[in-house]
């Protein structure tokens, strides 16, 4: 019973402290303490995560499961960065304390750790991010098929926004005087109308719903009504 009661009590107390700290100045230090505790827990849990990473990848390699070579690369990279980072190998000496090795800067690209981060890790993450452009195109291709009234409206709206974002928008409707009654038909005006009025209204409706959902969910957790995240063991 205590395995469930104590976590709920801690959650309830932490939740109430965080709410009170937002309104009462002297409770701010309490919320900072709660955050420090969370960071300590995270640090401990990181060891758990790293242990799990090792176990899973070692098991993959030993049983020669499909993709075991990737597991080997993961482990080599993990240990390399861990050792180089923890021991600050090749760190640029600190001018004030040149004889103290651990005072050196290991984040600069002149050190192995910084170099790996700058020239291996960053390009790899940028590559993954770059893939997004192609996925946006393929998702847009499917989403913008005129299948029904809603999708035709979506297609039309997207078309206006896309044209307005490019030079074609100005080329096609730029000749309409801005002070005329037909100025609303300019692509740039249509874009402003769609993004600042229609889109903002829809987005605010969603945001209000989200805020209410967050409040209700938080309350369910603080009151101990929702306990589904806890083990029943």
């Amino acid at each position, binding site marked *: 019973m205590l395995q469930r009661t104590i976590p709920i009590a801690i959650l309830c107390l932490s939740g109430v402290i965080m709410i009170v700290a937002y309104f009462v100045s002297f409770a701010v230090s309490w919320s900072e303490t709660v955050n420090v505790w969370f960071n300590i827990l995270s640090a401990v*849990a990181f060891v758990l995560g790293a242990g799990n990473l090792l176990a899973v990848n070692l098991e993959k390699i030993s049983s020669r499961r499909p993709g075991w070579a990737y597991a080997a690369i993961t482990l080599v990279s993990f240990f390399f960065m861990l050792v180089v980072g923890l021991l600050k190998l090749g760190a640029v000496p600190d001018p004030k304390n040149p004889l103290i090795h651990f005072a050196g800067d290991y984040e600069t690209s002149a050190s192995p750790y910084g170099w790996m981060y700058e020239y291996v890790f960053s390009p*790899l993450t940028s590559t993954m991010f770059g893939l997004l452009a192609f996925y946006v195109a393929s*998702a847009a291709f499917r989403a913008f098929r005129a299948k029904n009234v809603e999708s035709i409206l979506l297609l039309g709206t997207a078309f206006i926004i896309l044209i307005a974002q490019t030079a074609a928008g100005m080329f096609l409707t730029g000749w309409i005087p801005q002070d005329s009654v037909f100025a609303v038909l300019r692509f740039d005006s249509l874009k402003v109308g769609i993004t600042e009025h229609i889109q903002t209204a829809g987005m605010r409706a969603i945001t209000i*719903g989200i805020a*209410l959902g967050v*409040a*209700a969910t938080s*309350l*369910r957790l603080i009151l101990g009504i929702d306990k589904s*995240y806890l083990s029943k063991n």
Partner: protein
Amino acid sequence: MMREIRERSRSTMLLAATAAAAIAIPCCIALAEGAGDAATPAGAAVAASDSVVRTDRGPLAIAIVIVCGAVIGGIMLARTGRPLKIRRLAALDAVDEAIGRATEMGRSVLFVPGIQDMTDIQTVAGITILGRVAKTAAEYDAKLEVPTCRSIVMAAARDAVQAAHFEAGRPETYNEGNINYLTDEQFGYVAAVTGSMVRDKPAACFYMGAFYAESLLFAENGNSIGAIQIAGTAEPSQLPFFVAACDYTLIGEEFFAASAYLSGERDQLGSIKGQDFGKLLAVAAILIGCLLATVGVFAPEGAIAHAAETIKTTFGG
């Protein structure tokens, strides 16, 4: 029987005590705000941040009291035994179908609980939904894989899945090796998850939690392998991507209501009713505010324009 009554009364006392605290604290703040305003008519906002009570946040405190009061009222109402009618969510009705399909095809089910830590309420909501998905997967004897981006999320997911297996009456089928930590790095996580999607071809993919740029990468990969995809997030900027690429999407508040909806517990369903009441109040405030602001245009210095401004400050921040 006696134990049940004891537990129920203890739970009601806890609810009442916390409700009293939740309402009393912001009320004190609101009262203090009133006193502060009378004492310092000018420069109150500047001084507010330095005082013991943040009087500049008084309107928010009032809004919290209203919303929390509505949610607690909904829970209390549910406890009276009144029938609760909750709108069905297509995305949640499709959960059984998606897992059933995966079981028939002999493929796994993938659940991605977002990329944020347990400090994000979306992750907590995602883990709650994971419990239900895991229970169904356990009943169907389908393999459920949960790659996580944070160590604590992994621990929480393991607890939730284990609890689901116990609830399904199949504790022996629980395998904690299916719930793994990959990396904290956003795109490293994406690479690992999408790689496993392409290799293992799960038949059903669930994306429930906080997502950013990776949302479309997951959803498009899932689409390319022909998986049934059900997503839920409260990140407004990512919702269009999920709507475009997934079969079902829980939009914003639906995502938070889903955990309560899936539990089927009266208390949790009552909280959705309270949430709906809060929404009703928001709609009323918007309509009254619009009306007053429109009328106020004709008399900018009048009482109506002032009332419209007060509503805007109180509810609009």
